[in-house]
């Protein structure tokens, strides 16, 4: 689907003819079906794939994020018809956003990988994670409560 070629304009006050409307509706419904198909596909894969979650396979993560970006692009370019706006407006909106978001993603990925390594956990992180692990394993051991109390005691003194 080419922009600017055969699609009704969204310039200020541009009124469309019946024929323009028909053309636009056809494209919009097509976009809707693509988005619906992607969402159903995501749900089926999401509820069936084994070993999901953040610990799931890299390929699955990339697939989900890729499909999300496709859906986001469809919304911005067709539903918000940014694809049919003047080139300058498109760049003024997309370039600053992309610069900031990509930079943030980059910096958080670097920091996240660093602080996610067990060797880089703080003392509090370690206590917290051990506690959570013990709780979720369903152990009734006194260690967790003990640990919490010891921590609380340290706070007081």
């Amino acid at each position, binding site marked *: 689907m080419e922009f600017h070629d055969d699609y009704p304009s*969204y310039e200020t006050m541009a009124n469309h003819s019946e024929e323009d*409307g028909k053309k636009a509706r056809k494209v919009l419904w097509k976009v809707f079906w693509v988005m619906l198909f992607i969402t159903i596909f*995501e749900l089926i894969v999401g509820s069936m794939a084994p070993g999901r979650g953040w610990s799931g396979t890299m390929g699955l993560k990339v697939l989900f994020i890729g499909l999300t970006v496709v859906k986001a692009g469809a919304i911005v370019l067709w539903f918000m018809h940014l694809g049919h706006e003047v080139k300058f407006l498109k760049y003024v909106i997309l370039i600053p956003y992309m610069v900031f978001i990509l930079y943030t993603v980059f910096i958080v990925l670097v920091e*996240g990988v660093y602080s996610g390594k067990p060797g880089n956990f703080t003392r509090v992180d370690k206590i917290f994670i051990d506690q959570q692990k013990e709780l979720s394993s369903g152990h009734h051991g006194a260690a967790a409560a003990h640990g*919490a109390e010891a921590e*609380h005691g340290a706070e007081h003194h």
Partner: protein
Amino acid sequence: MAHTTEIDAKAAWDGGQSPFRVSYGKMMMWFFLVSDALTFGGLLISYGFIRHKYADVWPKAENVFTHFPFVEQHLPLAYVGLMTFILIMSSVTMVLAVEAGHRMDRKGVTMWMFWTIVGGALFVGSQAWEWYHFIVGTHDGALRNVWDMATGSYVQQTYHGATMVVNEYGVPQFANYFFFITGFHGFHVFSGVIINLVIFLNVLKGTYEKRGHYEMVEKVGLYWHFVDLVWVFVFTFFYLL
């Protein structure tokens, strides 16, 4: 008329016309959405950071959101799938309202705006239902360290549901981010429904018919699609990954 007229890049900035070929209001709506998108981006990225850090003890969404109204069985992700469908559908009715507005088709705008509002209200209601089940929790609950005011210490006990401090599903941060991000998004949807309602009433009154264009419908349309756009990301990062 129907096609974008090529503008001379030099003359475009000489004044007397919009170089972007949009009205001031629409451009400002876009700029607002960029800043709002950065806010949501920041929230989701920080969510990713915390989740990555506590990957070992982070609960899985399909074990948390397993309920469906009036159905006893466990149906992981089914309800959020329905919510996503409702929001995408209301996005389509919104874009059809905008399209009808460009043809000065008052009846079409009225109908599609109405269905958009219905979809938005359904989504907010579903969100409330989801929150309710998240807060009330499961029948079994889980063992948690709960702060006891009377003795001033943590007591291990069976805990049901979720608050900002403790939840039965896993680490407290999970509930924090769930409440904050879906709450922030839900409030956007709620405001969107109210704004849509105001515009809908204006359409009924014939305000835009008199004005000669339905640009206001297009502006709220941009906001409404943005809300859908954010949900696409929340859906992926909260429920799928």
